[in-house]
């Protein structure tokens, strides 16, 4: 249990206090100081690849991309400074952008809660019994591994095509929807279903969390006369809240990054009616098909800010609903 939470809470402070201890231990003796220097050299030696990657492939590119977002740039000329023009154009003069933001938000804000609810529900079902649940757990996890692949996008398109398995399955029940792929109203739900289909990874994390909830809590609640809904609300949910927080944060950020499935299903066009033109698909089109690298960089930074705001809100509100207590953890 403790191993999932440090991302958010325990890890960094622990190291920070270690670092403080090092600093405090500084002015004792020259020998001690020499040894600390040797430790520093060793550490940075081990960190050489990571530092090169961090500055060369992460921090440096971020700075360049921030600069480019204020320019007009087509890869071959020199970037031309245009101030906030890209950002202004995005929100006032680019209906495709606004549409792309809208469908991406719908996809993230509708898809992620459904996916997590499915993951939690099925994790609780698996947790009902130990014997035999291992097979189901593994089988249900499999879609998470392959869900983002091109192969699955192709299969998904076939599943939801006109007269495909979903269409003919629904018409047995008298629901005549036709193909989902070319239908402006159904292509977003179809991709949300693809996201929900990959509930396996959060399910496995929830299941690990459920196994940590002490049985005494349920017994005590039952003695107090709590029904199954009350036990779920007052025992399961609070005890799982750190895991729910972790899953919510990661799955939300992941959902913003949908690319391969939308790109394959629409053959890179973003159609029908712009309904598969998710943020990343549109950014790819602007940057690499239209060579508008400045505009696309501005798009990337808007996304970064939005993701940062969402993460901030989640972290801030988590103090109110995430419960890190209990003697068992």
């Amino acid at each position, binding site marked *: 249990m403790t191993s999932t939470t*440090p991302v958010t809470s325990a890890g960094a402070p622990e190291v920070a206090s270690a670092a403080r201890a090092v600093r405090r231990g500084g002015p004792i003796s020259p020998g001690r100081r020499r040894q600390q220097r040797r430790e520093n050299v060793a550490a940075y030696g081990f960190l050489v690849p990571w530092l090169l990657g961090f500055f060369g492939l992460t921090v440096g590119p971020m700075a360049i*991309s921030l600069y480019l977002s204020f320019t007009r740039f087509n890869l071959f000329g020199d970037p031309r400074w245009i101030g906030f023009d890209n950002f202004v154009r995005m929100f006032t003069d680019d209906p495709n952008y606004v549409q792309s933001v809208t469908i991406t938000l719908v996809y993230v804000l509708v898809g992620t809660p459904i996916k997590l609810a499915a993951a939690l529900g099925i994790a609780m079902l698996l947790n009902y019994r130990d014997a035999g649940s291992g097979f189901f757990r593994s089988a249900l996890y499999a879609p998470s591994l392959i869900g983002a692949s091109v192969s699955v996008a192709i299969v998904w398109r*076939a599943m939801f095509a006109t007269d495909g398995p979903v269409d003919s399955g629904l018409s047995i029940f008298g629901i005549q929807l036709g193909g989902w792929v070319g239908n402006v109203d159904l292509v977003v739900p179809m991709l949300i279903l693809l996201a929900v289909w990959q509930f396996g990874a959060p399910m496995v994390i929830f299941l690990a969390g459920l196994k940590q909830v002490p049985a005494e809590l349920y017994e005590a609640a039952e003695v107090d006369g709590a029904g199954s809904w009350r036990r779920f609300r007052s025992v399961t949910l609070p005890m799982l809240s750190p895991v729910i927080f972790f899953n919510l944060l990661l799955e939300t950020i992941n959902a913003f990054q949908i690319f391969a499935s939308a790109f394959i299903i629409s053959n890179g066009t973003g159609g029908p009616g712009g309904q598969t033109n998710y943020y990343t698909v549109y950014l790819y089109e602007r940057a690499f098909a239209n060579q508008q690298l400045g505009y696309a960089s501005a798009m990337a930074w808007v996304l970064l800010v939005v993701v940062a705001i969402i993460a901030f809100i989640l972290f801030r509100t988590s103090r109110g609903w995430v419960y890190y207590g209990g003697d068992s953890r």
Partner: protein
Amino acid sequence: MTAVQTRAEASATPAPRAPRQPSHSARKRVATVIWFVVLFALTLLILYPLIWLVISTFKPSSEFGSNQGLLPNSPTIDNYIRVAEGIGGIPLWRFFTNSLVIAGLSVVGTLISSSMAAYAFARIRFRGSGALFAAMIGTLLLPFHVLIIPQYILFQRLDLIDTYVPLLIGKFLAVEAFFVFLMVQFIRGLPRELDEAARIDGAGHIRIFVSIIIPLIRPALITSAIFSFIWAWNDFLGPLLYITSPENYPLPVALRLYNDATSTSDYGATVAVSMLALVPILLFFIVFQRFLVAGVATQGLKG
């Protein structure tokens, strides 16, 4: 494990209400049967797209428009034979080899660079460790969008387009913080007495890392190897951006070739290649599923 069993029994045995005792084991058996049936149906539903894919590869192309059923009317392996010849003069094994090279080198790079960084973060007290560790965790949440454009410009200026360098260099530089974090967690769980004893015997950090830590973190290395293989194997955006000649394509981009060129005329070929592209992942999954599920459960790795 035992906790769950006792809880299941506890909830099924409402102690104060004794009179119901006789029927209780029968009722429990019924509940178990229902549990199996529900989960089995659910699993079948979830795995249906994959079952459909496997069976469809044996449908002749002509049946894709006409036969809506799951089973082919006249099963054939023609799709596989046709697909093996490749597309546009490039044999299929070439795409497979390209994918294997990329995924294999990704595993090597990830294991070396991530384990080194993880050792420094987990075991050495050094100036700046707190800030750097926090920065590493921060990159876990960074959307890749702010990086792809400048990275593309960088690799284009260095004349590295249509090589595998842009796809691999990040792996050798521990850019995927997930793996560093996973290994840091694992190393922190090892008893410190081991390296302190080695240090008293005069071993330096390199020696401790190679002879003590590496052998002990094998489970974390295996988990990281499997995930980095699968992610590199599935990666689509990277090769789509950087690989321009078809003979260098890995499978996902090559699949797009089938998908674009033949989606109307040769559906059979498309599903057959889709299937073949998933085979290595599914094999990995079947062999290593314990490691994968344990890795996800303990570290909260994304799938």
